[in-house]
């Protein structure tokens, strides 16, 4: 009996120890990071920048797996169903399919309940741009031009009902002009069409449009954030220009399956924090035109909740439906 009790205690002790040891040892094998978007896009670039510096602060490498499709749902669902041990992560948490899509359509999982937020890395705001040759230089002139011409403003956006599309539609409604958003398959295609002069204005994330601005092809009319974007410090927000619209753009962070042990989440979060503080990583991100806006696990979870609620209110106000 005594022996049984002793061995039970031993087993319990080992179990308790291994739980803490798991977090302390983590990771003991390479960590797989799923990017549910195509390789080469802005989320993928962020993930690859994180991957590059991950090796510096972790014992094990990070392996990026691109699983595009279904607007991001397919790859994310894979993470939701993965073993919750911290070895399968999701990079891109806070994108359109996490904070916008749940309001618009039925999801195979709940982005807030089935995933646990690990850390926020960046926010990709929405910038309103026009061809450098366009006769308008800011929002006021654009609106005056539209009123004078009496024609709808054709607008290139990356995808339908994505962060960019919503921001531009909201802008049109608030400013009282007819904005016709033309969806493309991704930001690169949308900016290419705008660069060819086929549309009047376009929306895009700073990482996608800044190279074109530097090349003299685009000028930036406004940023659709509550405050100015650190990667475009000289561009006024819509609110500053008298149009009362602000959105959160596309948020980029890390998440793990909901049942992942708290210690492991903390450990990964700590690694990401170190990466976000690394001067070389900061330089890489600056080169990519992606501002670093780090948040820890708890704050990020609250932020995602807030952003989802804000988007739901906006969608209701704009009366947007997909069916």
């Amino acid at each position, binding site marked *: 009996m005594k022996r049984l009790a002793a061995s039970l205690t031993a087993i319990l002790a080992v179990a308790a120890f291994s739980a803490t040891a798991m977090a302390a040892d983590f990771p003991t094998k390479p960590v797989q990071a799923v990017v549910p978007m*195509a*390789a*080469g*896009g802005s989320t*993928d*670039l962020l993930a*690859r*920048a994180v*991957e*590059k510096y991950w090796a510096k602060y972790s014992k094990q*490498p990070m*392996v*990026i*797996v*691109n*699983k*595009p*499709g*279904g*607007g991001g*749902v*397919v790859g994310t*669902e*894979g993470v939701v169903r993965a073993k919750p041990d911290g070895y399968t992560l999701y990079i891109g948490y806070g994108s359109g399919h996490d904070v916008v899509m749940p309001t618009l359509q039925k999801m*195979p999982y709940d982005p807030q309940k089935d995933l646990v937020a690990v850390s926020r890395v960046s926010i990709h705001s929405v910038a309103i741009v026009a061809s450098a040759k366009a006769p308008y230089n800011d929002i006021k002139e654009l609106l005056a031009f539209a009123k004078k011409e009496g024609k*709808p403003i*054709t607008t290139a956006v990356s*995808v*339908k*009902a*994505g962060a960019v599309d919503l921001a531009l539609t909201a802008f049109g409604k608030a400013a009282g002009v007819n904005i*016709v*958003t*033309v*969806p*493309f*398959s991704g930001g*690169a*295609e949308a*900016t*290419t*069409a705008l*660069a*060819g*002069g*086929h*549309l009047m204005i376009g929306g895009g994330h700073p990482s996608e449009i800044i*190279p*074109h601005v*530097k*090349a003299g092809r685009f000028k930036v009319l406004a940023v659709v954030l509550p405050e100015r974007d650190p990667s475009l410090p000289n561009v006024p927000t819509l609110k500053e220009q008298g149009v009362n619209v602000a959105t959160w753009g596309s948020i980029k962070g890390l998440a793990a399956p909901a049942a992942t042990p708290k210690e492991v989440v903390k450990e990964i979060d700590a690694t990401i924090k170190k990466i976000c503080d690394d001067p070389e990583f900061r*330089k*890489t991100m600056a*080169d*990519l035109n992606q501002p670093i806006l780090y948040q820890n696990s708890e704050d990020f979870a609250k932020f995602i909740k807030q952003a989802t609620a804000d988007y739901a209110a906006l969608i209701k106000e704009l009366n947007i439906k*997909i*069916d």
Partner: protein
Amino acid sequence: MDIFSGLLNGFSIALTPMNVLFAFIGAVLGTAIGVLPGLGPAATIALLLPATYAIESPVTAIILMAGIFYGSMYGGSTTSILLNLPGEAASVVTCIDGYKMAQQGRAGAALGIAAIGSFVAGTVGVIGMTFFAPVIATFALSFGPPEKFSLAVVGLLLAVTLSGASIVKGLIMMATGLLLADVGLDPISGKTRFAFGVTELNSGFDFVTLAMGVFGLGEIFYGLEQTMKGELVTTKVGQVWPTMKDWVASRWAILRGTLVGFFIGVIPGGGAVISSLVSYAVEKRVAKDPSQFGHGAIQGVAGPESANNAASSSSFIPLLTLGIPGNASIAMIFAALLIKGVTPGPFLIQEHPEIFWGVIASMYIGNVMLLVLNLPLVGLWAQLVRVPFAIMAPVIILFTAIGSYSIQGQVFDIYSLVGFGLFGYALRKLKIEAGPLVLAFVLGPMVEAAMRQSLLMSGGDFTVFVTRPISATLIALFVTLALGQAGVALWKSRRATASSNSNRP
């Protein structure tokens, strides 16, 4: 003079032992993944991206990745010719006459011509890039949604004519391909179509899986039936090298394919596929004996294979001069450069001339390497047709299954591969050419998205397709081709009826 000093500087960079080594590794890897069904250059470059961080200089990294990309274009024709297995959309056309040639014991000739054509096209493409990059880049930008729609519609029409004798069969296959392409996300509204609650179908069918199933597996199932009947498909190796006659027959096809590929390949999205189609159509039209096409015409291999290689060179132009990636592989190279702190675009040539000219110079060297690498392999590959079917069939099934699984890591894709295989077998039995189906599957989403984008831009006004000069020209070409085709068909059927009437006693 500027160009020459730049190019000279580029060669001095590309010829350093390290860069030559990496160009060679890229060429070898590219050839290998081109030959392996299912493994594409985009996936390979994505996998290798972390390894490139370890490479100090960005020039060396991009030389490696560029080598993989254009190397895979050389390798892509191999399986199309030998096994009727197109690895990517741009080599679907090669299957039609290439595989017929292999069955006739002329695999070596087809492979040899494909390698030489690829070399000529790749090199001419790089020369064109050296001198005309900025002009060509502006041309690429002038293709907005209406122009893309009109171009893709011409592509669809050309795809239908691939069906050989029966236009009706071609139209049926085109319609089927368009329907299959509708499965998945609606490109404009974002709504899921025809997925029937299957999550894996939310993103639609995968192109490579479809092509491998309908062509490769369908062929194997058909071969299985033939072997059971005791008929061997082919054991002849035949002439390993192209003959003098083959050269003479192909030289103009190679040059025409190169020009077509260079100009159409520069258009972002679908450029390479359409250029291979256009090249095939051009060859069929200028041929002295068009009836040879579909039955092993060497021009039907030489033209499209040259076109897709020239297109792979010219697709670098929008990236290097405008900072615009035109396809998935180029997008990966774009990403790699950005992470290395180099922004491709109009300033690249001033800010980083060593990258711009280094890459171009390495492409001259890489193309020579690929020729030297691939020509001896022709003899080796040609021996493959001697491998008994009983060994070959399971190996191909295994490789295609791995290939389709590796694309998205979904078991579902293996099931759809088998489904498409059975479908391909049925088509084979019904003597229906599957080319139009597979090509319509690629072009369909382009037609749909471009048309709806154009109409959104014009406020629903259809004249947008005929009031813009490039689009109007393409539409005029479409109408001429369609009417011409209909006229020929009508004339043939009249003559056929007339002759069958006169034959009646």
